[in-house]
């Protein structure tokens, strides 16, 4: 048994590893710059001076471990710089990349962009009391140029600058050398394009100190990173939410199974009877009813004080203190959880019942059942001791697929009934772009459903020794 267990585990390990890699990949595909997102408020509140912004960005990205290359190696055009990930701010990165794609000469593009920034800094540093039309217009032009990604248009603006600067002696004195440098770097850029480099691939080794390495080991050690929202560890946030999700599922799953077994078996035994037909129709109706809608309708009906049925509360649980008494705990959680649990039970129950019915019907027609009956075994014993154990196998299998489905179901129910579980956290995190939480939940969900699959396998092997010894059965 133990050997079998380890074999199964070994089989699932690669799946988990691939899921980890997939999660990392997806988390890097998300649009937007994580550094900007995690610190959006701070950036907005800062003085927005050039130097301040750059300093802030660098320190924040270092703290988040994002000042490192993404992967062990990179495969990109030879024209691209090796330090692309180090350029602060997504928008500037994009402008620079667009310039680079028109020209291909990275050092020249960088020099041009840097001298543009230098010009802006110098303009900002000019004495406060010196104002002129030329200065204001120059400011405008630089601002436009900084975010313009068309080298052709840039030339027009540079010409405008050349006309503006001599209009004002102070301006000339303060900015002309830098302007000349800018002009020179622009001319150099235009004279030395290296477009061929854009078409030549380059394979760059980036070393082990990279984001993937770090994050992957973090995942393996159970470290899911820190939330962008409040900087708290993701695992702590998920842990708190998980307890809620588990709580409602611990009630929902066994009840769904019990109901399904009893109704399903009865339907199979009384196959073709009025009970069978009616229940079948009801089950089909329930099966077609989307659970979110049922949840919404129940919520409307049972939480409306005008109709005198404000039996359900969607708020109580948050107000419970650790020191409130047992009875209040029970009554409050009952009031808040009963309907969500119902909404989780019924979809699972309908599927399971229909399955139970059909497998039981097959089982009842088997030879050994007939033999048992012929031997004069009581009807109840025939059903529960002979037919049922054989019909129950598919129910165990569906546990594996039901577990992730329940997680999905709780996602909706938790959001509608305001239960602070994983689904609620996930949707909230999607709304606030808190990606570490989103992908943390994805990993945990994967892990849980793999655990579910392993459990199913074990249960199978425990109940049916044939599985344990059959080698060919090992591959799924």
């Amino acid at each position, binding site marked *: 048994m133990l050997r079998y267990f380890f074999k199964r585990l070994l089989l699932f390990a690669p799946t988990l590893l691939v899921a980890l890699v997939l999660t990392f990949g*997806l988390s890097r595909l998300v649009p937007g710059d994580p550094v900007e997102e995690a610190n959006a408020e701070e950036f907005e509140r800062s003085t927005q001076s050039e130097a301040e912004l750059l300093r802030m960005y660098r320190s924040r990205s270092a703290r988040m471990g994002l000042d490192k290359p993404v992967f062990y190696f990179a495969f990109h055009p030879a024209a691209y710089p090796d330090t692309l990930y180090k350029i602060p701010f997504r928008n500037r990165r994009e402008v620079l990349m667009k310039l680079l*794609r028109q020209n291909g000469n990275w050092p020249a593009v960088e020099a041009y962009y840097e001298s543009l920034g230098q010009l802006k800094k110098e303009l900002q540093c000019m004495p406060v009391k010196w104002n002129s039309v030329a200065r204001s217009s120059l400011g405008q032009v630089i601002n436009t140029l900084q975010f313009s990604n068309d080298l052709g248009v840039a030339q027009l603006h540079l010409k405008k600058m050349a006309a503006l600067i001599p209009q004002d002696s102070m301006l000339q004195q303060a900015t002309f050398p830098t302007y000349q440098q800018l002009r020179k770097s622009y001319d150099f850029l235009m004279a030395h394009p290296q477009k061929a480099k854009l078409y030549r691939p380059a394979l760059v080794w980036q070393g082990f100190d990279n984001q993937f390495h770090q994050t992957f080991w973090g995942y393996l050690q159970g470290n899911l990173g820190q939330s962008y929202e409040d900087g708290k560890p993701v695992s702590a946030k998920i842990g708190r939410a998980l307890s809620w999700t588990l709580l409602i599922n611990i009630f929902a799953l066994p009840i769904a199974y019990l109901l399904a077994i009893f109704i399903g078996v009865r339907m199979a035994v009384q196959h073709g009877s009025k009970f069978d037909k009616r229940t079948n129709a009801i089950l089909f109706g329930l*099966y077609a009813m989307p659970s979110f809608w049922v949840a919404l309708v129940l919520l*409307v009906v049972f939480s409306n004080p005008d109709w005198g049925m404000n039996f359900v509360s969607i708020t109580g649980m948050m107000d419970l203190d650790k020191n409130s008494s047992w009875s209040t705990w029970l009554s409050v959680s009952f009031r808040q959880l009963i309907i969500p649990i119902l909404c989780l039970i019924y979809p699972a129950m309908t599927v399971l019942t229909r399955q139970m019915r059909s497998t039981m019907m097959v089982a009842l027609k088997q030879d050994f059942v007939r033999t048992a009956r012929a031997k004069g075994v009581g009807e109840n014993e025939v059903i529960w001791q002979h037919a049922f154990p054989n019909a129950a196998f598919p129910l165990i299998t569906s546990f594996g*697929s039901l577990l992730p489905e329940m*997680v999905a179901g709780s996602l*909706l129910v938790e959001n509608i009934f305001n239960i602070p579980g994983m689904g609620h956290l996930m949707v909230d995190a*999607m709304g606030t772009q808190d990606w570490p939480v989103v992908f943390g939940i994805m990993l945990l969900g994967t892990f849980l459903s793999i655990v579910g699959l392993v459990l199913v396998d074990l249960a199978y092997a425990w109940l049916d020794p044939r599985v344990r010894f059959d080698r060919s059965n090992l591959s799924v």
Partner: protein
Amino acid sequence: MKKRQGINSYWRNVWQRFRARSAGRLALRSLLVFVLIALISPFVANERPWYIKVDGKSYSPLLHGILVDLGVARWPEVLFPTEDWAEKTHQGIAFTLIPYSPGSIDHKNLNARGPFERQRVESWRFWHWLGTDKTGRDVAAGMLHGTRMALWLGCIMVGIAILMGLFLGGIAGYFGDQGLIVPKSRIWAILLFLPFLLFYLAYLPGVAEGASAWTRGSQALFYLVVYLILVFLLDRLLFLLLPKLGHYVVPLDTLLMRLLEVVDAIPSIILVLALIATLQQPTTTYMMVVVGIVSSASVARFVRAEFLKVRQQTYMEAGRALGFTHLRLLFRHALPNALGPLLVLLSFSMATAIVTESTLSILGIGSPDRVTWGSILGELRGQHQIEWWLALFPGLAIFFTVLTFKYLSEGLSEALGEK
């Protein structure tokens, strides 16, 4: 000729068995009603009137508007501005049954007015029979348009799921683990040039800034063709140089099953949400594409199983013995036999698609760029006073559509003699 007839009679048989059951008939009729509503909805609920008479001349803004939207025609001068038709000076006007488009805003009835609440309308003609939503949009118009959207989005999702699933499951199921035998030289050639193909496909569209989708597409096609030519040449060369290189057996089936295992391990709704998070523009259509990709896993699994079953059958062996090509065997023989069960799955997936779209809308995922049943339901979110008309009508619509598709799949599978 004879074979054709055989297939035809098989389907006729299925059709008769399907029609014999009242549930199947009912489902089919109800589906037809939905399709009909989807087709005529723009002519039932539209802010543009059927007919208007201005300065003695008659116009049909509704029909004309369709031409203008297509870019074929222009609006006549007298009709400007082409908004607020009721407030124009006219000699006669005839509105559609519901004089609102799904997106038109009634500024006088903002903030969700119920059908029985006081509405500020000029006459009963403009009454919102199913109320308005928070932005003053007519719920009835939204419901009609929602039918259109539901079917359209369902088709997108199911289409993608079926195409991808058929492809993946089909090749895995057909070839199995031993069926695909490729010369080593070809595999090497493919693997050698693959990084370059990916490189050019990934980076070069960026170089041509502002190029149209057409040029980009033809560029990609060009790279693909060059790639194939290179692979072919290298393959030939290697074959000439090292003729005794041997073959690899590609375990396609195992590869696919491993992939499906990973996808299955991630709870599907969470995978969908995570994938949506990576979208630049999470519009409803893109979201359904994502859902389609995720659900293609189950289609692939199903198709694989069907193909494996078909593979064992004698006529396939006969076909192989006769020397038919892989493709011919796949499309002419394996596919038609797997078609029936596939139809069942398709109908079932339609129901899932509609539910998934509504679920995402209710959760407030993605950007609500279109009025769908789900988006009307989604307006309930975060409200402490629940507007029942926003819950009831779209909910009923979803319930009946889902019921229809599920009955359809049930009826089909029984007619096909499954179970």
